[in-house]
């Protein structure tokens, strides 16, 4: 089944809008297998330019989270393994590194579904995340930074995180990630279950962080509308393969993207949708 690698490593569109910038992160032909049996992603190649903002789109089970985990090293606890290819971060190969070492290097992964430390207060959540580097004063400074980005968290800082509402938890998860002073911020479906205005709010903040702190962002999203608004360019993953790669504008215009991710034309009607098997037009 590896014969398809050459195919997948040549996405439909070759030109890379951010090629001129040195990539802070690059995946070459990464393949991941869970439990030694189930093949999750096959030969995925991705680049995130310095200070750039990249989106990773794809259907359920396409392998987006797996891709992120292969970067942050969080496959191990799930008995997943990078069996081929390599992950390079600012120059060096990080495949051998343990998760916390990668965070030290500057990669941080905001997990799907928030995963805040439920029994601790938001404040303690942030402190815990500051342990990886820097002294006490760094910690305090970063906390202020986070609280300025998320004033809402400051109000709730002494509550028990487990009882925060979905949005607040998402903010906490992002703030917690920022505490590690990362170079690369990876967000896995940050808009999951958030109210529309919160989605826009959070994406704005992420964009601001990206500008002001100058850190690169790799964004996994189902909400393609919101995602493609903020990123410079995006990748599309299907069945564990990169099947499309282009800048945001071009992607928005792509008819398939429109049909399957953006929801086609305005005001189209769910009642008219008939059951149909989807056509895998990408690979043909």
């Amino acid at each position, binding site marked *: 089944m590896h014969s398809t690698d050459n195919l997948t490593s040549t996405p439909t569109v070759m030109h890379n809008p951010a090629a001129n910038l040195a990539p802070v992160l690059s995946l070459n032909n990464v393949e991941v297998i869970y439990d030694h049996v189930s093949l999750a992603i096959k030969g995925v190649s991705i680049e995130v330019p310095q200070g750039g903002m990249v989106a990773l789109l794809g259907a359920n089970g396409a392998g987006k989270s797996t891709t992120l985990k292969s970067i942050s090293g969080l496959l191990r606890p799930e008995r997943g393994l990078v069996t081929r290819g390599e992950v390079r971060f600012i120059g060096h190969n990080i495949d051998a590194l343990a998760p916390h070492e990668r965070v030290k290097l500057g990669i941080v992964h905001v997990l799907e579904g928030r995963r805040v*430390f*439920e029994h601790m207060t938001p404040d*303690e959540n942030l402190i*815990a995340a500051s342990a990886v580097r820097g002294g006490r004063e760094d910690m305090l400074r970063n906390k202020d930074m986070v609280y300025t980005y998320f004033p809402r968290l400051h109000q709730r800082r002494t509550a028990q995180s487990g009882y925060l509402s979905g949005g607040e938890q998402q903010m906490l998860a992002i703030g*917690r990630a920022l505490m590690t002073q990362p170079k690369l911020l990876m967000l896995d479906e940050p808009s999951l279950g958030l109210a529309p205005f919160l989605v826009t709010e959070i994406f704005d903040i992420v964009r601001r962080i990206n500008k002001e702190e100058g850190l690169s962002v790799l964004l996994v999203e189902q909400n393609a509308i919101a995602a493609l608004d903020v990123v410079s360019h995006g990748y599309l993953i299907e069945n564990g393969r990169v099947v499309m790669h282009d800048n945001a504008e071009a992607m928005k215009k792509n008819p398939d993207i429109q049909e399957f991710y953006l929801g086609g034309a305005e005001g189209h009607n769910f009642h008219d949708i008939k059951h149909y098997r989807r056509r895998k037009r990408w690979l043909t």
Partner: protein
Amino acid sequence: MDFSLFAELAINGALSGLMYSLVALGIVLIYKSSSVPNLAQGAMTMLGAYVVLAIANGLGLSMWAAIPLAMATMFFVGMGIERVALRRLAGRPIIMILMMTLGLDIFIRATTMAIWGGTGRPMSIGISDDPLFLGPVLLNRAYVVGALVAGALFLVLMFFFHTRRGIVLRAISDDYIASWSIGISVERGVAFSWAMSSVIATTAGVLWGSVQGVNQGLALLLLKGLTVAVLGGLDSIGGAILAGLLLGLLEGVASGYLDPLVGGGSRDLVVAATLILTILIRPHGLFGRHDIERI
């Protein structure tokens, strides 16, 4: 009824209860920082005591030189345990980890016995046995010392779990994966907690050893320690102390007044009753944390 008798039973009971808290604290420490209920704490206590003796007799050192050395040794033993036995199980269902600690318990006990043999040995840390009266009430010096140590440990741990490192440990117990994702070395954290707990075990071993002599019996402290720990709430330092106090007090008074009536051994009944009642009134022990379930 004779008040001084009551007072004496109650006070000495409470003090001995705090001695049990010493074992409980070790269990709580590990649970609070990795959600592992350690059934090997008793065995570790025993091992700690034997190591102290081995160092003291082997190197011909005084107790006060041997104890710190033993603590250092046990510190690394604890780390070793994590490295060998628990690291591979990180994130597994709790019950397997529970079983692992049970295996450790069997292994440590048997190995210790195989090396040093079952004949009891004395452990004197210079606590005099002369009577110590507080008014009409006679106090047990050894227990007083033990209680003081327990109190000190309580303060230290309380402080520790509010330092950054302590918060990190709590984070680990809350969610391994999330901890990894923000750069916490879960392995190191858990190893550290085991190391600390081994040191506490040594302390308990020394104190109990000085009370009952060093022998297999030390390993049996597990059941009491576990009972106290769970009663207090597995992740609550304060709980471990209070539960120890409470249980000890009840036991002391009970065995003083009930035993003659029911023909002995009423302690276990009291313990059982206390357990059931606590669970009915406070399902998570006295101060244990509730698991948050967002439906």
